[in-house]
């Protein structure tokens, strides 16, 4: 009679409808684009400074001397000159200042100056940095025109790629964006389609269940990849995010993003099946996303975590996505080089979809 029914056509019609709907949903756009971009902005402007030691010059200190002169040239040291004795004291106690220095001419002659340095227990680590800076500084001041008797240090620096904060933060934010689109987006959409009987109406048409899932999935992956591309490009052009092999690196990142969002959508399917009402979706989703957000190296390197926490971090899928993203973007690794990370994500995917098939509800 008529031409045969086309599942592809039905799937694509669904993908198109779903994509339109996602683009018009404020929460999807906020979670996928706005949040990660805000974090990138904040860290993009914060980052790059490195360590700074705040060293106050005590009121009444001599300032026309080679020690202060040399300290002014050291980038790590920020000299604070405009605080009175009382302010210096309280700021030292609070750790806002890392040390105070007072230099006086020596009335006894030699050495010409006496530098009196006071550290604070509120900031011992920066105090130690300052201590070694001062030792180094005084050594070179004292040994001017003197030949070393034991050994002389010859220093040089290898020119490497500058690893900026953005190179660490952006892949993490990208992973977070994919995680929230995958989990929250999928969970809410399938729950509400089920609840409002949209899916039931679909079932009254010849469409297959697989077409519904695939159509929704295509739309979400498409949306997530557009979001990812946008984040990468903003990072690259505004914050000098490193993309070693240019377009190839971007494409590799997008492949990783697609794998990531597919795995995370599995969590979304599980949540939509478990949730009893609309209001239980955010808490359940947060149980899945928050630990990964905090423990998967989104903001801090996992190596900074206490050793008992690291195995937990290394069990989470987002950890591997972040790891792979950073390797690809900054080290220029190909997809084959991060096969280990991809494999672990795929194992997570298999596991979570096995659970999803069990708990997912159509009506």
């Amino acid at each position, binding site marked *: 009679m*008529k031409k045969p*029914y*086309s599942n592809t*056509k*039905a799937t*694509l*019609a*669904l993908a*198109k*409808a*779903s994509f*339109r*709907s996602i683009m*018009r*949903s404020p929460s999807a756009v906020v979670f996928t684009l706005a949040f990660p971009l805000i974090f990138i902005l904040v860290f993009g402007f914060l980052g790059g400074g490195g360590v700074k030691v705040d060293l106050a010059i005590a009121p009444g200190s001599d300032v026309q001397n080679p020690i202060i002169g040399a300290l002014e040239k050291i980038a790590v040291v920020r000299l604070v000159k405009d605080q009175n004795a009382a302010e210096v004291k309280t700021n030292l106690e609070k750790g806002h200042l890392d040390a105070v220095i007072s230099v006086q001419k020596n009335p006894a002659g030699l050495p010409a100056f006496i530098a009196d340095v006071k550290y604070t227990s509120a900031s011992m680590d920066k105090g130690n940095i300052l201590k070694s800076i001062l030792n180094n500084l005084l050594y070179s001041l004292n040994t001017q025109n003197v030949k070393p008797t034991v050994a002389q240090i010859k220093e040089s620096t290898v020119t490497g790629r500058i690893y900026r904060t953005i190179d660490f933060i952006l892949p993490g934010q990208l992973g977070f964006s994919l995680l929230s689109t995958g989990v929250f987006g999928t969970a809410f959409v399938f729950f*509400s*389609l089920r609840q*409002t*009987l*949209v899916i*039931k*109406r*679909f*079932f*009254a*048409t*010849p*469409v297959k269940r697989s077409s519904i899932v695939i159509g929704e999935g295509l739309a979400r992956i498409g949306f997530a990849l557009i979001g990812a591309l946008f984040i990468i490009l903003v990072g690259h052009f505004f914050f000098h995010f490193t993309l070693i092999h240019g377009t190839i690196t971007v494409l590799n990142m997008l492949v990783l993003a697609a794998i990531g969002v597919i795995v995370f959508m599995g969590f979304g399917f599980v949540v939509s099946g478990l949730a009893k009402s609309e209001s239980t979706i955010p808490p359940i989703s947060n149980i899945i996303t928050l630990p990964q957000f905090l423990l998967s190296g989104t903001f801090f390197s996992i190596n900074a975590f206490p050793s008992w926490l690291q195995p937990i971090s290394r069990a989470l899928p987002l950890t591997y996505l972040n790891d792979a993203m950073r390797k690809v973007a900054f080290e220029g690794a190909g997809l084959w080089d991060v096969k280990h990370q991809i494999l672990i994500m795929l194992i997570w995917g298999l596991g979570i979809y096995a659970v999803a098939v069990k708990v997912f509800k159509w009506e």
Partner: protein
Amino acid sequence: MDKRNAIISVKDLVKTYDDFTAVQGISFEVYEHEIFGLLGPNGAGKTTTLEIIETLREKTSGEITVNGLSVDKDAGQIKQIIGVQLQAAGYYPSLNLVELMELFSGLYGVDIKPMEMLEKVNLQDKAKAKYKALSGGQKQRFSIATTLINSPKIIFLDEPTTGLDPQARRNLWDLITEIRNGGTTVVITTHYMDEAEQLCDRVAFVEHGKVIALDSPDNLIDNLVSSGFERKKEVKKANLEDVFIHLTGQQWREG
């Protein structure tokens, strides 16, 4: 109309849930090109019966054929020749009516012009509106438009006029009659007996999961009258709804 072919045949349909029996042995036939009404109180099993015929629900036992196709084996084919309006169904969020029409044409695998479909139910002015923003009557008309996309042989309407004002209700009756006149068989459920009397060629009364009467509205009324039944109050030539329509105007309004 002559003695007609049965396009739907339901035989001894039973549907049991864990703790109760929703349908216990319903049998009836729906003829081609008629408007067939399933009437009965809430919980009588009307919607369950309808959804089993629509292949949305599994039956426990019984035999059902739709246009010669068995609901057990040919669910996919049945779905291609029927149009279904569900009680309180929702539509994809954030899409306008034209976009929803495009979606359904994809789901049914047919090429239609969304605007033409909307014109059929007089919603062309609302093409860019979201489903949520429509009035009750407009929502029902849109739902009916989605049932017509695949030019179905049969459409199922589950309580399409519930909650509508008299004008919107009469407007919908006209639309349904028009669809039937176009050659489509209509199966409808309703709580309103005046509606069934006006609209349906034949009705089946369903109570506690059983068909307790099945005939044309005229015959059913005649039978009751001939059994000696009399209304307590003498029937006037008009009723209050006629007064309402007379006072507020024939055209339906949407607000």
